[in-house]
């Protein structure tokens, strides 16, 4: 029998407390601090009545005052419902005016929402799951709704900072804000036989022609089972889906345009060149919208920096198919306007 088998609990607790008392930060947390402060500066705080529900759930149910609070909240909710019904009866259809920008759009609206109803993500406002969002800059106009981080959760899986231009919209994943879901309207394409201004089918063919160590996969068109998440698009579009799985050990940061396949930005726009290459994992949803090609890329970070070294310093992941699909599902109800 060891000494620990017979150790009194008090002694065990004393040893545990003593060991834990010696623990402390083992790393410089300056960048973490900066990230938190940057992400919260200018971000909107949720009003107390939207937050309280979450707090109450976390509290032991045995405490009487929370039962009282529940009763009060339920009473308030009933009162609000009664008032809403009354107001509806009095005012009738006149309530269907343009909602205020700060009001979350209804997620189950039968009519197509427009970008006027949506929050511009460049405003730095924290989004909630299901909230209708748009970009002030990206063209054509698009709307989408962020997915909850996990089902039922009130947080979304998007970094607060957003990069956007008329041809590029980057929605970064909070895992270091390196992986992203990106909407791209290429100024031109330089990829094998695709031509400068290919449609979705032509670019898919060119991407699939890139020799790949693990194999690119043609997942079919947007209507093919499992090609994209079922609720991804709010409208019907023609498009193709191609998955390309790369492997970290093969990533050659110093090789530019490795597979001669690039989405080119408008000169002078500051948007990055997007390389499509076999050593970086990405999932491409290629869509024809109003006669133009739109590329939605879910990627664990591409070679979209000024140099290979810079791309490598930004980090790149070893995301498999499952992670790429998770990134593709960061938003849903995507709809392009005119």
């Amino acid at each position, binding site marked *: 029998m060891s000494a620990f088998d017979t150790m009194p609990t008090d002694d065990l607790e004393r040893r545990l407390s003593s060991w834990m*008392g010696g623990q402390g930060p083992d790393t410089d947390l300056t960048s973490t601090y900066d990230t938190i402060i940057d992400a919260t500066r200018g971000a909107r705080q949720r009003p107390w009545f939207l937050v309280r529900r979450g707090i109450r759930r*976390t509290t032991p149910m045995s405490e009487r005052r929370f039962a009282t609070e529940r009763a009060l909240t339920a009473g308030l909710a009933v009162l609000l419902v009664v008032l809403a019904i009354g107001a509806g009866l009095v005012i009738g259809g006149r309530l269907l005016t343009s909602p205020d920008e700060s009001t979350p759009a209804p997620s189950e609206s039968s009519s197509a929402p427009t970008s006027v109803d949506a929050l511009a993500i460049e405003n730095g406002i924290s989004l909630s799951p299901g909230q209708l969002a748009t970009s002030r800059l990206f063209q054509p106009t698009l709307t989408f709704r962020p997915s909850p981080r996990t089902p039922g959760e009130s947080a979304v899986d998007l970094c607060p900072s957003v990069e956007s231009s008329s041809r590029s919209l980057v929605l970064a994943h909070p895992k270091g804000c390196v992986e992203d879901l990106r909407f791209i309207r290429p100024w031109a394409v330089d990829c094998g036989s695709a031509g400068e201004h290919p449609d979705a089918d032509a670019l898919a063919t060119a991407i699939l022609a890139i020799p790949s160590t693990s194999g690119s996969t043609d997942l079919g068109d947007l209507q093919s089972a499992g090609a994209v998440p079922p609720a991804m698009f709010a409208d019907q579009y023609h498009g193709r889906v191609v998955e390309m799985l790369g492997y970290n050990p093969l990533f050659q940061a110093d090789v530019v345009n490795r597979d001669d396949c690039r989405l080119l930005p408008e000169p002078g726009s500051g948007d990055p060149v997007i390389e499509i290459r076999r050593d970086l994992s990405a999932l491409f949803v290629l869509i024809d919208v109003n006669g133009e090609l739109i590329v939605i890329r879910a990627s664990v970070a591409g070679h979209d920096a000024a140099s290979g070294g810079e791309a490598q310093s930004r980090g790149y992941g070893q995301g498999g198919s499952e992670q790429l699909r998770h990134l593709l599902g960061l938003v849903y109800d995507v709809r392009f306007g005119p």
Partner: protein
Amino acid sequence: MQQELARRAREGDHDAFSALVRETLGRLYTTARLILRDPDRAEDAVQDALIEAWRDIRGLRDIDRLDAWLNRLLVRSCYRAAKRERRRTLTEIPLGPFHDGTRPDSVLPLADRDEIERAFQRLTQDQRTVLTLVYFADLSLADAAVALGIPIGTTKSRLHNALIALRAALAATERVPELKGGVA
């Protein structure tokens, strides 16, 4: 002091929130690292928790429960981080040494400390979490229950079971050298 900062942050004072983050970041990070056993994921978890804290601090009615509330956000964030990691990769979680000498040595002898550390790493996340909240974050059982989002009775039994598991893990840790010694 922290309560005053929290009160001002609740009224939208971002400078007060920044000061609050500066004061709590190290402790919350260490809590997350003890729970997750991984420095990178701990940084992500504490980052998520504090961003959520800014967004939701208006819902914190009782400022005196600040610690329990922050730990609640952190614990939830740690569980989400662990879940994401399971989904993301099947690679092993690194079990690096916790103690790097950045804090003064505890009064335990080195060998004893290593045994406790190894045994602690063998526990489940639920067990590590409750022990960390009570013995590192120094929360009362009631506040630990709030942080865990479970009733106080469940917290008590989870703590009891965690201590039993820790004792068993310590015994196993001690037997390994005994066995090695026997073979040699």
